[in-house]
């Protein structure tokens, strides 16, 4: 069983390889071979058999496979004849019909302004930073005569195989050139601020529309899937200044925030202080009035008594007051005779210690 498979596969590949060659040169050589062989060994019948076999093989060569996502164009004597869909197909062999297979469903990508490094991309940990920048493609002039750096991806696929094959030389290059031109036309028509700001969606739509419009003119058989604006940056020479603008914006926010927090701090404090002052004043008012009322009523009360006996009340009040004043304070009582000229009057207790 194993041996059979071996033989089978081994046999199969050399067949397919040798077949196309056979059409032009090897075939004649084989004919001659047969002639020679015939002369020495075989009869005409076997020549016919061999020729028939060769013709059969040649015809069998017309089978071909179209994979999913592919389409094939069959050209008969140089003229486009038909398209073939995925599956097993048959065409007349080589001199009559030839075949062009293209992956129509495959989404193709054109990189403008940079080249991704394909090798790295396949490795684990692909590094996008390793992309090379193509300055000649990425740097362009904006509408207000500023310079900007753009990286753009244009995704496309073949929409009409015969148009794609037969209408334009090097369609891929054409798509690229048209894309580049369209990008520059759109960007060249815009101030740098709007390219850098959030109008990216609008810009890609414009670019896509323009590319489609131009390609339609060429009947190139290509459909644009998507235009992706990967990078839109000011040039390296000025990027520091652009970043500083962003920092400045943050700084501004910071300043304002700080000021607001200052305000949020100071105003409630002031309001609190004000409330305190007001409360205090209310308190003072009540206190003063109450005191006045109290004083007045006390005075009135005493006055009532005073009216009853003026002399006594006066005297009593006077003595009460003296008692209160003199009760605890230092007192010196001096007669008129024999007074010392010096008197150690101590103004304060502190002088005692000296």
């Amino acid at each position, binding site marked *: 069983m194993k041996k059979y498979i071996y033989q089978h596969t081994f046999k199969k590949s050399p067949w397919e390889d040798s077949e196309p060659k056979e059409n032009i040169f090897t075939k004649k050589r084989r004919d001659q071979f047969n002639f020679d062989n015939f002369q020495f060994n075989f009869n005409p019948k076997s020549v016919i058999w061999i020729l028939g076999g060769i013709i059969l093989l040649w015809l069998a060569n017309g089978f071909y496979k179209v994979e999913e996502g592919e389409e094939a164009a069959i050209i008969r004597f*140089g003229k486009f004849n038909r398209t073939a869909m995925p599956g097993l197909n048959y065409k007349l062999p080589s001199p009559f019909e030839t075949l062009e297979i293209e992956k129509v469903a495959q989404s193709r990508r054109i990189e403008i302004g940079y080249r991704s490094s394909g090798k790295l991309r396949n490795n684990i940990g692909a590094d996008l930073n390793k992309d090379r920048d193509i300055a000649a493609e990425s740097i362009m*002039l904006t509408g207000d005569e500023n310079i900007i750096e753009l990286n753009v991806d244009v995704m496309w696929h073949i929409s009409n195989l015969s148009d794609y094959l037969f209408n334009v030389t090097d369609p891929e290059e*054409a798509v690229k050139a048209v894309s580049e031109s369209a990008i520059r036309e759109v960007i060249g028509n815009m101030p740098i601020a709007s390219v850098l700001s959030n109008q990216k969606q609008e810009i890609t739509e414009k670019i896509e529309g323009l590319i489609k419009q131009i390609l339609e003119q060429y009947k190139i058989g290509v459909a644009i899937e998507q235009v992706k604006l990967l990078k839109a940056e000011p040039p390296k*020479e000025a990027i520091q200044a*652009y970043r500083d603008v962003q920092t*400045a914006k943050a700084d501004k926010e910071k300043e304002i925030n700080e000021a607001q927090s200052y305000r949020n701090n*100071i105003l409630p404090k002031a309001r609190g202080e004000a409330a305190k002052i007001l409360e205090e004043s209310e308190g003072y008012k009540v206190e003063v009035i109450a005191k*006045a009322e109290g004083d007045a009523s006390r005075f009135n009360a005493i006055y009532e008594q005073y009216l009853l006996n003026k002399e006594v009340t006066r005297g009593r009040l006077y003595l009460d007051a003296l008692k209160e004043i003199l009760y605890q304070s230092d007192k010196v009582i*001096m007669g008129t005779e024999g007074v010392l000229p010096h008197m150690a009057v101590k103004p304060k207790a502190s002088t005692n210690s000296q």
Partner: protein
Amino acid sequence: MNKIHYVGFAAFAFLMILSGSLFSVDQRQNGVVFQFGEAVRVIESPGLNIKIPFIQNVQFFDKRILDVKAEAKELTASDEKRVIVDAFAKFRIVNTVEFIKTVHNYQGAQLRLNRILESAMRTVIGKFPLNTLLTDKRANLMLQIRDLTYSEAKNFGIEVIDVRILKADLPPENSTAIYMRMQTDREKEANQIRAEGNEEAARIRSKADKESKIILANAYMDAQKTKGLGDAEAAHLYNQAYSRDSEFFKFYASLNTYKASLSKENTQFVLSPDSEFFKYLRLGK
């Protein structure tokens, strides 16, 4: 034996003639049949065709859309500004015989078209100031270049389908100036933003200061008013009471003041025994 050789030879000759007289024209190409160097037939539809073997030969010319590029050239716009422009044109051979007569082949056509395209670019761009290239008039400019190229290339059996400006950049020395300008522009903007931040912040702070001062001042005013009211009320009350006997009030108030002001700790009294206060003390002596 001989018969077989004959048959073989006849077959070989037949094949030779067949291959000399049959030819296929590709979908992408036009075939032109020459007879002794003279173009006698143009085959525009692809497929199998016949010619007289050995006398006629056939050449093929692309009928797809072809491409020609104009290399980057420094041109002067009408406002004396220099600009580096490159462009490409898409064209197609429409009159093959004319094409062969005038430019012979694709390379010849490219050379010619290149020159035509460049001169058209020079003419058209020289008519407009640079900033026209940087507006939506760019498309219009490209159309003008195309029309110019179209009318000149027509003589070569070529139809120019489209001319597109690829790049329109300023020369390197101008670019440096632009970078400088962009930089200073941004610096200006950054400074302005920062200054605006300071301005806004100062405004907020001073407004807060003002508001807090107003709040405090108003509070002070209200407090003083309230206190004044209290004082007035108190004064009224005192007046009412004390005005009943001003002589007694003076006496009473003085005593109260003495009590309050002559405190016990820091006052020393030197009293004369002759004073009214000691009148009764003396009596006892």
